[in-house]
């Protein structure tokens, strides 16, 4: 019987043992686990022309398998040997009654079956299968790591926001960087002003997107002329101006190129307003 066949037999026996355990049939569960242990050892019996020469009975062949496992750096051989010797001669129908088997021995044998199964799976898996497993593992871990990294990055890079003034606490400057276009930072009536985004660490900037405000269902506010200035340690390093043309209940965004390095702060100034006052739904720095 080939190693693969022995492994398949062992896995069938393990699944049978687990199913029997679920049903509370411990004696037969133990017997099938014993069968699994022997089948797993059979997978380690050396090829006929090598060290197994001279081993004629299955028991002798499994003793050879134990030696092969020891050479393969299987950890804690005495436990495996003890577990095997405890179940060496048991067939499913000759299993000892559950009461005769102490729980500690039962668990110990189950642990050895599990350990040897894992070890055999790893050792007998072809290089291609191991490679596939590693790829699959990476495919699972990478998105999780990416999401965690993104959350940490977003937490780290979310700028501190201050503004010259706000219409009311309900329209605080933080609402311009909350990723929610339904919420807005609004200036008081007819007032020009600015909003500052201070970064936690110097960063490069390529462009700035300004999403105009319109004051919810009132649609009576809008920024007009705007100027965006990038600062590196309070020194102006780039500036750009733009203009919104009308108050609109639809989303109105202005993409302004602003290229600068080592930017620590971006200030967006509202130079003129349409309607009752200005503000922004979102300020995005790219």
């Amino acid at each position: 019987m080939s190693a693969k066949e022995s492994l398949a037999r062992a896995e069938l026996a393990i699944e049978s043992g687990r199913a029997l355990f679920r049903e509370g049939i411990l004696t037969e569960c133990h017997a099938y686990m014993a069968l699994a242990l022997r089948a797993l050892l059979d997978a380690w019996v050396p090829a006929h022309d090598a060290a197994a020469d001279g081993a004629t009975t299955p028991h002798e062949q499994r003793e050879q398998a134990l030696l092969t496992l020891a050479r393969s750096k299987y950890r804690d051989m005495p436990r495996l040997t003890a577990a095997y010797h405890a179940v060496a001669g048991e067939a499913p129908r000759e299993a000892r009654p559950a009461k005769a088997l102490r729980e500690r021995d039962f668990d110990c044998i189950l642990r050895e079956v599990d350990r040897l199964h894992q070890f055999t799976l790893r050792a007998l898996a072809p290089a291609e299968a191991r490679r596939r497993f590693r790829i699959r593992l990476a495919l699972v871990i990478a998105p999780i790591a990416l999401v965690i990294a993104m959350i940490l990055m977003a937490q780290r890079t979310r700028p501190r926001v201050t503004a010259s003034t706000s219409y009311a606490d309900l329209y605080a400057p933080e609402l311009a960087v909350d990723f929610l276009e339904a919420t807005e930072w609004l200036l008081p009536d007819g007032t020009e002003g600015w909003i500052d985004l201070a970064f936690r660490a110097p960063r490069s900037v390529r462009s700035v997107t300004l999403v105009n405000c319109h004051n919810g269902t009132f649609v009576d506010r809008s920024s007009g002329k705007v100027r965006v200035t990038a600062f590196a340690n309070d020194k102006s390093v780039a500036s750009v101006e733009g203009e919104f043309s009308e108050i609109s209940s639809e989303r109105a965004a202005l993409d302004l190129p602003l290229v600068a390095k080592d930017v620590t702060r971006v200030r967006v100034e509202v130079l003129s307003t349409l309607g009752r006052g200005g503000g922004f739904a979102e300020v995005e720095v790219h």
Partner: protein
Amino acid sequence: MASDSKLLVLVAVAVGLWTPLAWMDWFSSHEQARYVLRTLEWASELRVGELYPRWASDFYGGYGSPFFIFCSPAVYAMAALLTSACSVFWALKLVVLGGMIASGVGTYALVFGETRERNAAFLAGIAYLVSPYRLLDVYERGDLSEFTAISLLPVALALHRAAAKEAVPRRASYLLVAAAASHALMVLSHTILGLWGTIIIGLVVIASAAGLAWRGLWRRALRSLLAFACAPGVAAVYLAPALAYRELTRLQLTGVGHFRPQTQLYPFSKLFPEGSLFSSRNFMEVGLLLAVAAFLTCLGLALNFRAGRHVLGWWVLTLLLVVSTMPIASGFWAPGRLPLSQFIDFPWRLLGPATLTASVALGIGTAAAFQRLGEDTRSGIVIALTSVLLGVIAFPAASAPAVRAEGIPRSPQAIRSGIESTTDVDDYLPRAVPAVPRSPAKALIVSADEATVAHTKSDASHHYLTIDANRAGASVGLALHAFPGWRVSTRSGPDQATLDTGSTGLLRLNFPTAGQYRLKVYYGITPAGMLGSGLSVLSLVVLGLLLFHGSRWWKVPLSSSLDSGGGA
């Protein structure tokens, strides 16, 4: 999972039942926008470095509230973390989505573990997903904490049962640790349902452990009991201070009047719709689901008693839970009769767990009833039943009136500009405070006696002050509600400043020596919080040991019988 098409369909149904939330900014419910405000508070504390915030600094117009000492933190903690990547509304919606999926998958796993029958597990998962109490816990009551707790209950039960039925010790240990973790998360999601859910899990664990012990597997039985006991231990970081400081708030307001359990008991008829079946929308109307479960259970027992007999235990649990919500159980809820019996406010909360146990019974009954039929026939019956459940029960329940985000405070400043407590009866207002503040605090300093305040800066519950004390014994009153946990750290000054409570229940800084003081006033961990944290760490260590027991890092010595090579 990817190969189990029924489980994938179940997940799709769970997502489908959540979809109405995705189309609206927020929704109208009994809880209004309270969860949004609480999450914003947690997130603002998180941003100043408080990993487990206890103080809601913007409630009561900036005077603050020890809200998070008493209110189960799991939902706010999860949502606040997500606010780093999305808006507070979406963060809460994603937590609800997680709860929806956990409910379905947990019930599926629980029933599959009991029956090994995917059709029955699928039907049970759908039954719990469409349970009116569970759905309307979100769409009508808006109680996201309770919803999360009853979503985690089937997960914890499924993992405990799977551990008891697992032969391989390594897998059993993993399952037990996962069961304890999900159980702890349930307690951390909602204290009341956490307590009553713990009793349900306890009964199931005891029954499972008894089964293991009956077969001579005493060690496994003890391990499962140990894992069960560790779950409240893990949650002690929240439970210990919540219990220790109860008396310092107005929590006595609960348990009386409207909140008296005995006034919240309803007759059996209340469990059924009064009007049209298709338009009725009441979270108590779980009767139809119970009736379907009862019918399929009886059918299962009649056709295949041997396979269906396990259902009896689940029905005993269901009946106990349902009966406890009726006037007949009035004596059970009488004050002082049973410990913790007042700790429920509304006994009808137990209809949530009752629909879970009924769904499990429905699954087991279905598996027994249709065991002898072919796979195609069983699938057909289950699809038909699923369609009925979705159409009749879920359809009217899975929706809520939309609320636009504009009407909801969305920043700490906006919360601070009103008198928010996010509770009905101000039960977490410190008892030392004579009344709810009438207006928001205008500044951090309310009074200064022989002291000049040179500078103040506040960042959530962290306040930085520079104060010149003109003479020894000078004091400064702060617009902060006093409560155990407030601390002052003197960064520089001629002496150590101290904190005490003024006559109006506000914090007061005292300066023993004249001079300039630079201070940090902040809400830190309390002695009960430290005790709870210690208990939680200890419980985690025990769970860790449970995980490693028998592994190569912690080997179990061989018994003499095995060591001698002969077995028993």
